[in-house]
């Protein structure tokens, strides 16, 4: 599934064995696509000496701070670079 800027997404809440770059504190959290970065080699396979192909689409995802940190009363936003296979559509 490919996303565009403004699309609602949720970070997959799945465990992962081995190296990955999806922070635990964002798993299960909903946000929106802020920017499409383009495609990059996959760190989950590169971490084991492979070339990281096929390249995967990487997005800048924006979260409301109050969704990420429920106790927060501030109006911050949290931004994270997340690969497409970690994102699910949210209507």
């Amino acid at each position, binding site marked *: 599934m490919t996303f565009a800027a403004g699309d609602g997404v949720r970070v997959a809440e799945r*465990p992962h064995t*081995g*190296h990955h770059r999806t*922070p*635990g*504190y*964002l798993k299960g959290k909903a946000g929106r696509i802020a920017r499409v970065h383009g495609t990059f080699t996959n760190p989950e396979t*590169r971490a084991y*000496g492979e070339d990281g192909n096929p390249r995967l689409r990487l997005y800048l995802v924006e979260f409301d701070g109050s969704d990420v*940190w429920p106790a927060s009363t501030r109006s911050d936003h949290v931004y994270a670079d997340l690969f497409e296979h970690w994102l699910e559509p949210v209507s």
Partner: protein
Amino acid sequence: MERGVHDRGGWPTDAPIDRTEHELADWELRMDAIENVLEKRGVMNTDEMRRGIESMPLEAYEAASYYERWLFTVETILEEKGVIAPGEIDARVEA
């Protein structure tokens, strides 16, 4: 959900953030250079380097400084690839 030693965003803590700067020691500059050369020569890549750090036992991770973690991962990955033998660096240091 189980999280790696490095994956600590959102962990509750009362500890203040240490914002102090320090001069890098010679070995730290050298550690940085060694890792970068190994990447440039295609011996290891950044993701392997990160995986090595993430494989540190919690207590070792907590106790290690930034470049001590780099030393750990370079040694780990080079041993994994058979570039150096297990314990080779320690043996050279003791010699």
